[in-house]
């Protein structure tokens, strides 16, 4: 089946929806090529989120002006050599059309060179092992091409920063920068585009569904069209009732979205789908859920049911870990997500800001001290011939004793070979004293050694 995003690619700039100002700048730039001399800025950078009409605008611009298009996109291997061969020579010479026709550029037939996903290309060229080759990479080739070109060039990028960093800085001076903004695409225009496509395809789709698709795409027109096509496949009539069973696009679904689904709905499918996309391990996710249950569930009975399920989920997690039977995770996930979802008698009308698991936060911030303690425990364990865990049982006593007795502390440092941070951890404020004493001791040792040696000499 034909890809609708290609089939309904805009044929003129007017058909590209939204971003009127950006399109006007593009048009103005194109007319500046109509004189015999190339304009001052021979290249344009179009940047913005995916699917909002950057490439379509570039191609439509060429069509409007009767220009030939040379497109290099990410699927071509684009190293410096290839860019030179195609873009650079294309930029310097007159051209034949796809149909073989020849019209010199002075009669208005220009050739538009489109470098799609230009922010993506340097990673590829940086695969060159020799670092001296880096500068000879794609970015340099593009800059050279723009400097020399007698034909219009458009660079397209999602991430402007990626394109302009490093040697790309020069592009700032050479190019006109045009931002395509997904917020500049009104929802009603997306809906009317979808309507038009449905009419052309002769498929009847409920307007509510079109609105839903347009809403969900968040300005990404391409994915809206893709969604529409996937909804319409094999149908010639789509009612609102059918769409419930159709998968929808999960865009940047975060943990917070899943939590919202869990706490606000009882829709198992949505919850599980959301969980899959959120990409959080069950061992972390259970912390998220248990942290936020009391924020959402206010009724004591709901709370009890929810935590009961959390505890059961935790059992599975423990078993999975001990026995390395990670297939048990699926039960744990079901309990901690759907189980918690059905724990509520009815949804709460509260608006909660879900918070990051405090346990994880604590663990993160205490990581350094924990590491310190572990290394001390290991040292004590080695000295006392016990495990680090056993040593943990009397660490507090050791600490108290050494803080009351500097001499003991000093000998501990020597015997256990503790470093500065470890001393600070163990002796607290007295660590400074210990250090002084140790230095003094070391000096005395040195003098004693000297004296002994001198005695030997005589």
């Amino acid at each position, binding site marked *: 089946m034909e890809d609708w995003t290609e089939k309904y690619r805009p044929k003129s700039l007017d058909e590209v929806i939204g971003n009127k100002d950006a399109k006007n700048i593009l048009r103005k730039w194109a007319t500046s090529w109509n004189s015999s001399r190339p304009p001052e800025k021979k290249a344009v950078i179009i940047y913005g989120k995916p699917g909002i009409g950057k490439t379509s605008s570039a191609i439509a611009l060429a069509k409007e002006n009767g220009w030939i298009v040379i497109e290099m996109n990410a699927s071509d291997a684009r190293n410096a050599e290839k860019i030179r061969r*195609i873009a650079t020579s294309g930029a*310097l*010479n*007159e051209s*034949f059309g796809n*149909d073989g026709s*020849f019209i*010199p550029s002075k009669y208005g037939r220009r050739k538009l060179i489109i470098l799609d996903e230009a922010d993506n290309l340097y990673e590829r060229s940086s695969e060159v092992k020799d670092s001296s080759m880096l500068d000879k990479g794609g970015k340099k080739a593009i800059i050279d091409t723009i400097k020399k070109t007698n034909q219009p060039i458009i660079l397209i990028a999602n991430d402007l920063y990626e394109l302009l960093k490093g040697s790309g800085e020069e592009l700032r001076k050479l190019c006109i920068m045009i931002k395509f903004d997904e917020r500049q695409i009104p929802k009603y225009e997306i809906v009317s585009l979808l309507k038009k496509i449905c009419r052309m395809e002769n498929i009847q789709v409920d307007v509510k569904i079109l609105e839903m698709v347009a809403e969900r795409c968040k300005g990404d027109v391409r994915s809206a069209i893709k969604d529409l096509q996937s909804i319409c496949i094999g149908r010639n009539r789509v009612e609102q009732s059918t769409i419930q069973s159709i998968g929808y696009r999960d865009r940047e679904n975060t943990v917070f979205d899943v939590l919202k689904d869990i706490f606000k709905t009882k829709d198992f499918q949505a919850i599980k789908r959301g969980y899959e996309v959120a990409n959080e391990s069950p061992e972390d996710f259970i912390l998220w859920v248990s942290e936020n249950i009391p924020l959402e569930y206010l009724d004591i009975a709901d709370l009890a049911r929810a935590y009961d399920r959390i505890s059961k989920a935790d059992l599975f997690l423990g078993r999975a870990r001990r026995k390395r039977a990670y297939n048990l995770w699926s039960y744990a996930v079901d309990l901690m997500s759907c189980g918690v979802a059905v724990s509520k008698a009815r949804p709460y009308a509260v608006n909660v800001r879900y918070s990051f698991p405090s346990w994880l936060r604590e663990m993160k911030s205490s990581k350094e001290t924990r590491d310190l303690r572990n290394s001390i425990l290991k040292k004590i364990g080695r000295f006392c011939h016990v495990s680090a865990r056993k040593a943990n049982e009397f660490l507090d006593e050791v600490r108290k004793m050494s803080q009351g007795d500097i001499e003991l502390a000093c000998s501990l440092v020597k015997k256990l070979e503790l470093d500065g941070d470890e001393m600070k951890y163990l002796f607290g404020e007295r660590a400074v004293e210990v250090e002084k004493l140790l230095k003094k001791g070391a000096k005395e040792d040195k003098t004693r050694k000297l004296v002994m040696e001198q005695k030997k000499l005589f």
Partner: protein
Amino acid sequence: MFEAKVKAEIIKAMIDITSHLINEAKLNVRKDGIFLRAVDPAHVAMVDLSIKPSAFEDYRAEDIEIGVDLDKLGGIMKLASSSDVLSLKYEESTNKLVIQIGNLTRKMGLLDTAGMPDPKVPNLNLPAKVTLKASELMQGIKASEAISDHIALIATKDGFELFAEGDMDTVNLKLPKDLLMEFEVPERCKSLFSIDYFSNMIKPIKGSQPVTLYLGNDNPVKIEFDFADKNGHAFYLLAPRIESE
């Protein structure tokens, strides 16, 4: 249907002539031979090539289109020496080209030709016609490559000239008309061209073979020659440089 036996050198020549411009080619296989025409990805050059059935040891074909990856085919041709006779067969059921080199059978997957354009040869005003030996041109190209990235081809009433200008150096190859094999120049013609394109177009022509250039003013050049004992014919069209004032 396509079944043929042919010397490897014929296929190798076809690859030499086309592969510096294009990676993929659509071969139109017909009763009266094999035809290929394509524009390079930079839209700067066009190549047109035909091989008559008489170039083949054995040739049977009905009209089909075959999409060939030229790099791949070139790699396969390295398996054969020039005088080897290959047998070629198009396997319709699998869309593969079966190539038999001695006891070796190589089946090559073919490309979908649906998206490949069919360019037409444009009508160009190229009044000057000059025929000379490829080796003579090559000498001028080699000298120019060292100093510049483009050359001027000039035809006057007195002869043919190749001119290149670097920052400090110049190259000038002058061939008076009595040294040329063919000469028809009604008016002075001059156009500029990228040297690497031009060089790649002359390279496939064997040293003493004649090559015919058709020139106009700021117009493409047509480079025409025969190969495979005149059983193969090819021409290039190369677009001129854009002259910025």
